[in-house]
C-alpha cells in the first residue's frame, strides 16, 4: 500500500503544474478562512457600530462552532473544492493522454494497483485539505474564542472528520468521471454540466429522493450552520439546524465513495487500455 503511494508521488514530485495548483488551492483556502475575520473587521470599522460585528466575529470563530463554520465554507459545492477536483481530473486524464496507464500495466501493475494508488493519492489530498482547515481553525479559535477549554476546542471536531469524508467522496467522483471520459476537457465539461443538472433534478424530483443524489448526499454531511446569532435574532425561527454530523449522512456519503471506487474499478477492468 505504501509502495503504491510512493510510486504515485514519484509521478508528481517534479510536476510543476501539480504543485502550482496545490499551492494555489492551499493559499486560496487559507486566504478564504483568514479573510473572513479580516472582512468582518473591515465591515466593523466602516459601520458606525463596531461592537455588533465584533460579537458576530466572536460567535463565528467560537469554539466549538468554528469547526462547523469553517468546514462549511471550505466544502461549499461550487467553490474552492473544485480546484482539488480539477487537480484530480488532470492527474487521471494525464495518465490516459500520455498513455502512461498502459506503461504502468505493462511494467507490472494490475488495474487494481493503478486504482488503489490513485485512491491513496486522493485520501492524501483530502487529508492535506483537512489539515489546513484544522490548523487555521485552531489559530482563529484561539485568537477569537471566548472559551478555550479542552471540551470546547475539541467539541464538534467531528465536523473535520465529516469534511474529510465529504472531500474524499467528491474527489473520488472526479476520479470516476476522469476514468470514464479519459480526456481532460471532456471530463471538465461533464463535471460542470453535472453541477448544473443535479440542482435541476433536485427541483423536479421529490424531497425524499433529492438528499440521495450524489453531490447532494456528499454535501449533506456539513449543512448550513446555525450560528447562535440567528437564534438570538429570531427566537421563533423554528427550523432544524444541524448541531452534529449525522451518522446516516456519513454512511450515505461513504457508500457513495465506495460505489465510485467500485465503478472506477469496473470501468478500468472491462475497458482496453
Amino acid at each position, binding site marked *: 500500500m505504501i509502495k503504491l503511494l510512493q510510486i504515485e508521488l514519484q509521478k508528481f514530485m517534479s510536476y510543476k503544474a501539480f504543485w502550482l495548483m496545490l499551492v494555489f488551492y492551499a493559499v486560496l483556502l487559507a486566504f478564504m478562512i483568514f479573510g473572513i475575520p479580516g472582512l468582518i473587521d473591515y465591515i466593523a470599522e466602516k459601520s458606525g457600530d463596531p461592537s455588533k460585528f465584533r460579537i458576530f466575529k466572536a460567535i463565528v470563530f467560537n469554539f466549538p462552532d468554528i469547526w462547523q463554520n469553517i468546514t462549511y465554507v471550505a466544502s461549499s459545492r461550487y467553490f474552492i473544492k473544485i480546484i482539488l477536483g480539477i487537480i484530480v481530473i488532470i492527474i487521471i486524464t494525464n495518465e490516459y493522454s*500520455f498513455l502512461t496507464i498502459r506503461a504502468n500495466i505493462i511494467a507490472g501493475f494490475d488495474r487494481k494497483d493503478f486504482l488503489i494508488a490513485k485512491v491513496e493519492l486522493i485520501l492524501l489530498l483530502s487529508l492535506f485539505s483537512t489539515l489546513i482547515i484544522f490548523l487555521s481553525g485552531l489559530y482563529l479559535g484561539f485568537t477569537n474564542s471566548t472559551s478555550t477549554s479542552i471540551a470546547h476546542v475539541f467539541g464538534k471536531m467531528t465536523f473535520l472528520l465529516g469534511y474529510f469524508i465529504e472531500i474524499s467522496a467528491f474527489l473520488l467522483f472526479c476520479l470516476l468521471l476522469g476514468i470514464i471520459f479519459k480526456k481532460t476537457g471532456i471530463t471538465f465539461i461533464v463535471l460542470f454540466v453535472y453541477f448544473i443538472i443535479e440542482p435541476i433534478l433536485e427541483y423536479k424530483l421529490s424531497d425524499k429522493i433529492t438528499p440521495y443524489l450524489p453531490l447532494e448526499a456528499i454535501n449533506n454531511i456539513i449543512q448550513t450552520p446555525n450560528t447562535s446569532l440567528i437564534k438570538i435574532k429570531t427566537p421563533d425561527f423554528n427550523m432544524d439546524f444541524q448541531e452534529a454530523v449525522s451518522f446516516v449522512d456519513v454512511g450515505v456519503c461513504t457508500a457513495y465513495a465506495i460505489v465510485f471506487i467500485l465503478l472506477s474499478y469496473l470501468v478500468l477492468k472491462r475497458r482496453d487500455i
Partner: protein
Amino acid sequence: MEQILTISNLNKKYGKLHAVKDLSLVVTKGSVFGILGPNGSGKTTTLGIILSVINADSGNFSWFNEPNSKANRKKIGAILEQPIFYPYLTAEKNLQIFANIKNAPFSDIERVLKIVELYDRKNSKFRTYSYGMKQRLAIAAALLGNPEVLIFDEPTNGLDPRGIAEIRELILQISQQGITILLASHLLDEVQKVCSHVAVLKEGSALFVGKVDEVLNIADTIEVSSNNKELLSIALKENRQIIEINSDQEIFVIKLKEGFSSYDLNSYLISKGIVLTHLAMRKKSLENQFLELLTEAE
C-alpha cells in the same frame, strides 16, 4: 524445449473488424520470435492482449506455463507501439517509477541507461528527447530488472538507417544472453535478419508458424527447358538436389536445396546427356515472397 508463451485460440473483435482470429502459437525459451504481418494484421492487438492491456474476447494465453498475473509481467520487458513516459520527468525519474513498479533496484537504472547510451542525458526531461532517444529509453525501461522476455513492437519504426542498424544489433546482443525475444514487424527483411522463428499474420490469423528459414523459403528458382521434354522431366525427378518442380508449358521451374546452384544442376543434366535450350536464374526479392505468402492464403 521450455515454453515461455503459449497462446491458444485467441480472438478479439472491434465491432465488425476481427482483429485477432483464432490465433494459436508457442514461443520457446531462447528463441527470437517474429510476428510478421502488414499494418492492421493484428500484431499490436495480439501483443496488447498478452500484456494485459487489451481484453481478449475468447481464448487464452499463459506466460511461463503459469496463469496470467502481474508477477509474470514483471519478468517481461515490453515496448508497445511507441515509447511511453511521463514527459515532464527526467529519464532517470521515469525509470525510477518503472523500476519501482517492477521491483527492480534503482542501481539497475545506471546499467540500462549505459546500454542504450543515454547515461549522459539522464537528467534531461523526456519531452526534450529526439525520437531515436525516446526509442532507446523505452528499450532501457524494458531492460530494467533483467527480464526473461523482451517484446518489441516495430522497434525500428521512424528511425534513420543508423538507428535501425543499432537497434537490430542491440536485439541480437540481447538474444545472445539467452533472453527470449518477441518482435512484431511489418518488415520481412527485419524479421529475417534477427528472428529464429516467425508467425506470419494476415487479417488477424496466422498463415504460417515455424522456423524462419522454413517458412520464408529463400531458395531462388531456376528455369530450364530442353528439346526433349520427357527425358528432362524424368531426369529432374530423379535428382535429389531438387526440392520443387513446377512445369510451365515448355519450361520447368525448379527450386534447389540450399548449397546447390545452377552449376550443379547443369553438370548433372550434361552427365545424363541432356542439352538445355534454356537455363535461367530467377532471384526472388524477399518482399515478393512475403506478398506471395499473403496472397496464397486467399
